[in-house]
């Protein structure tokens, strides 16, 4: 009788040990990569999180009719050109009457953002009845103020080594003590364009730029890529030329993206004179880059359609084109879309080619069409990471968070689409 339970010689033991060892190696490899990923994501989140909050200073503004509307006829040109910054500064000085010297006054003014004048003007233009009244309003704090309240400037440092001196820290503490400092969700970060001032810089311009660029990219690369794949897979004779094309498409997928950027610069901008820095050109360059990915993925999914489906259609007299477009292509569509979305996600994160075609410019206005100058998310990250102001450090991380969120959404969409459209047989 064979004893299956107790009998185990050295050889068998060795085999089991080998199996356990291999499993352990695999788990260690996964743990290491997960660890690095967790480290990266948590660092970005930790650094980027404060950028989603902002500080406001509450001031009792006297909307002085003499300053805003000296003629008293509420003419909008007069209302537009009035010096609102003066009102905010006057109110702030009223809180600290001891500040007399010119230098100290300037230090005091630095608590407020340089943008407060525009904020007040917007309020007045929206509501004329404010003129002549006094009201508590919340205005943007300056970058330094925000840094202080977010804990990046420590009062323990020697005075000459920090961005705020003892007087300014004293004033800020007083304001905070009086309940004149508020922390709110940083909506402007998501709803405004870029700015030289870190506290005002927003991501929307870059987001729109990325969106428009991807739109152009998808509109070009998806139809061209899938049709090329269908032709190569279903129609093209299996000739030497076809194999050469296949090898070259695979090679194109490995070409560094900056080369595509140079191509766009030389041909699209210089030869054809298309507008510089626009999502149109950016999308075209990224489409060139995405094409090989889409073609390769589409060919793979076409090849995965069982030949029996083609035979079935041909057997009842469907033409080649009917077979392809009624049966084969719809069955391959989920795979093609997944390939396209993965290609798009790649394009979303691409920076180098966009630098070459000038989408790296400092653009404050939000782009409204594909021919407006714009920048894109990864380029915005590059720009902010390059800026010396301390406030841009957290903006950079916050922009990375936004980019990652979009990448995750796109990849999830790919998975969901695949699940939804997949046909099992």
């Amino acid at each position, binding site marked *: 009788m064979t004893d299956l339970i107790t009998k185990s010689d050295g050889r068998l033991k060795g085999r089991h040990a080998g199996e356990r060892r291999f499993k352990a190696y695999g788990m260690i490899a996964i743990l290491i990569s997960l660890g690095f990923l967790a480290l990266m994501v948590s660092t970005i989140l930790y650094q980027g999180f404060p950028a989603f909050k902002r500080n406001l200073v509450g001031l009792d503004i006297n909307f002085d009719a003499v300053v805003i509307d000296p003629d008293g006829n509420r003419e909008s040109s007069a209302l537009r050109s009035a010096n609102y910054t003066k009102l905010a500064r006057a109110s702030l000085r009223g809180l600290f009457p001891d500040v007399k010297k010119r230098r100290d006054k300037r230090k005091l003014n630095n608590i407020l953002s340089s943008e407060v004048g525009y904020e007040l003007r917007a309020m007045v233009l929206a509501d004329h009845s404010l003129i002549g009244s006094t009201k508590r309003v919340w205005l943007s704090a300056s970058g330094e103020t925000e840094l202080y309240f977010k804990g990046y400037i420590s009062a323990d440092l020697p005075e000459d080594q920090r961005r705020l001196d003892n007087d300014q820290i004293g004033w800020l503490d007083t304001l905070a003590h009086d309940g004149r400092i508020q922390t709110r969700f940083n909506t402007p970060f998501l709803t405004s364009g870029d700015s030289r001032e870190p506290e005002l810089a927003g991501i929307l311009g870059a987001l729109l730029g990325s969106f428009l660029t991807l739109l152009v990219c998808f509109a070009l690369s998806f139809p061209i890529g899938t049709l090329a794949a269908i032709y190569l897979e279903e129609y093209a004779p299996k000739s030497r030329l076809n194999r050469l094309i296949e090898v070259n498409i695979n090679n194109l997928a490995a070409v560094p993206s900056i080369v595509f950027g140079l191509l766009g610069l030389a041909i699209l901008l210089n030869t054809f004179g298309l507008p510089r820095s626009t999502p149109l050109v950016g999308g075209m360059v990224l489409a060139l880059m995405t094409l090989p990915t889409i073609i390769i993925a589409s060919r793979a999914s076409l090849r995965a359609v069982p030949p*029996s489906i083609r*035979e*079935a259609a041909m057997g009842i007299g469907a033409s080649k084109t009917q077979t392809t477009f*009624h049966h084969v292509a719809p069955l391959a569509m989920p795979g093609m879309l997944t390939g396209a979305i993965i290609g798009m996600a790649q394009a979303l994160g691409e920076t180098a080619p966009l630098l070459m075609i000038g989408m790296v410019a400092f653009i404050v206005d939000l782009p409204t069409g594909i021919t407006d100058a714009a920048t894109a998310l990864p380029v915005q990250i590059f720009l902010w990471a390059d800026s010396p102001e301390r406030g841009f450090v957290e903006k950079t991380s916050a922009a990375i968070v936004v980019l990652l969120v979009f990448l995750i959404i796109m990849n999830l969409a790919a998975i969901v689409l695949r699940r939804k459209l997949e*046909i099992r047989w």
Partner: protein
Amino acid sequence: MEMQAQRLNLVELPELAPARSKITSSNVNVFYGDKQALKDVTLDIPEKQVTALIGPSGCGKSTFLRCLNRMNDVIDICRITGAIELDGQNIYAPDVDVVTLRAHVGMVFQKPNPFPKSIFENVAYGPKIHGLTSSKTELEDVVESSLKRASLWDEVADRLQEPGTGLSGGQQQRLCIARAIAVQPDVILMDEPCSALDPIATARIEELLDELRENYTIVIVTHSMQQAARVSQKTAFFHLGELVESGDTSGVFTTPQDERTSNYVTGRIG
């Protein structure tokens, strides 16, 4: 009863009077690249009868079947010489439209291959692309009659919108037959239609073949000699790319002329 008797007793087949030839092939050679798959095959397929092509694996019987509706055209390296005529027209003539040819010569494959669409769509697809029907009700009629002829209607009448791939193997194969019939072909080619089916499903298909031959010329490739004996009136035996022997099924099975045929039908080679 009479038909039953015929099927059981191979020797008495009185109706096998010379029938008109539907397809005639003469000196057909097929090459895959350098390899010759068929050598000088000359065979007539009689109208409204079942012709069985038998022979060991790789003997060229499927290749010959696929020549009859030019399914070999899709293979790049495949080259064909000789002539195959359907109703006196050479189907390899340069001006022949392959799409029209395949509408006249339908095909059922080894593995049931319904489209991953509804049962209705599966049958309706052929008539739709060939423009055979002009209205929706007409299309529905064609679908119904095709499914009835494939004796599948009773099983699927109340679930026409369900996917064809959800049927059992035998039902799927009958759906494929209904799909072929819906295009109103003259000839139906069957490439080992029962090899993926269980004996009960096989029996149903064989029964169906007997009914179908009243209206259609059928050519069936089969590995099973019993099946060939049961369903066919004519049998052609292929061996290593050659047509060794052809004739009335009873003759081929009971009094084979060639030694290779007798070795095969008695089970000594194969």
